[in-house]
């Protein structure tokens, strides 16, 4: 196994290059694939209503985030005790949301909320996850971050 240093060096460089390209290629494929499947867009109720029939968005059959305020007096617990319905409004439009599960601690009427899930028909949104948006007091990022975690809150997009 006597290999000259020059050949070894060349071989090593080739190996590094090929290895790097292969890993990068796989990673790029993974990333592209993941972006296609797991990107979740954010819409407000009025946007959803305005663009429901927009064929490029396919709102009817894709998972997205719905954000707005929980309308006052709209929260109703169904008979099973753990399913809740409420109305999300952005002042210009509203959509009814149904969620089975325990709402985050910061969820309250009149508060910001982000629900992730799918539409069922034009006016009912079945949420798989509800994030309360605690933003009553505009605050520094650390605090917002802490609140976000505690309340399972989601911030940036929801400020629309």
């Amino acid at each position: 196994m006597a290999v000259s240093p020059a050949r070894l060096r060349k071989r090593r460089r080739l190996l590094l290059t090929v290895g790097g390209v292969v890993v990068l290629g796989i990673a790029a494929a993974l990333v592209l694939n993941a972006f296609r499947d797991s990107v979740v867009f954010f819409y407000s109720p009025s946007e959803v209503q305005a663009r429901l029939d927009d064929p490029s968005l396919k709102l009817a059959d894709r998972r997205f985030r719905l954000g707005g305020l929980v309308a006052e007096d709209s929260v109703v617990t169904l008979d099973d005790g753990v399913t809740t319905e409420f109305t999300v409004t952005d002042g210009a439009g509203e959509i009814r949301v149904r969620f089975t599960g325990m709402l985050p601690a910061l969820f309250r009427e009149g508060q910001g909320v982000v629900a992730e899930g799918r539409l069922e028909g034009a006016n009912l949104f079945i949420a798989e996850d509800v994030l309360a948006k605690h933003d009553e007091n505009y605050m520094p990022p650390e605090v917002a971050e802490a609140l976000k975690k505690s309340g399972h809150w989601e911030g940036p997009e929801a400020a629309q």
Partner: protein
Amino acid sequence: MTWRAFLPIGVFLVLAVALFVGLGRNASIVPSALVGKPVPTFALPALDDQTRGFTSADLKGNGLSLVNVFASWCAPCRAEHPQLMALGQRDDVTLYAINYKDDPAKARAFLDKLGDPFAAIGADPTGRVSIDWGVYGVPETYIVNARGEIIYKHVGPIMPQDLEAKIVPLLDGAGS
């Protein structure tokens, strides 16, 4: 083969441009669904007997108005108050306030200490009217034209630089 050594900085510069564009965008977004629309119809009772109630009628046909949503428990509200006091000096705009989910006595103490530039202060203890305005949190400030349409929404405290860069030019422009 030195070009490879320049690869990292190339990638970084692209990233930096993207970050800069992102920074610019974020500073300018936060539009409200209500900007350009008439103010919601509402009638709020007076905070206490030192002021009067605040209704949607106040905002129509009375020149430019500025509506500030505040609470005494909100620290940024305290920070922006000097700027509101400065705006209160202007003759071409009337300041109104919605006191959001607050104890009237504490709100009054807040104003006694920092000054009261408001022509009327409506109390919104449940936050119900604030929802109609699309309020996400406090402080928020709206500028309403003489026709009663919302022309601008400011999210978060109005800092001195916001006053110069956004509010004052807007008021100057809308007034002329």
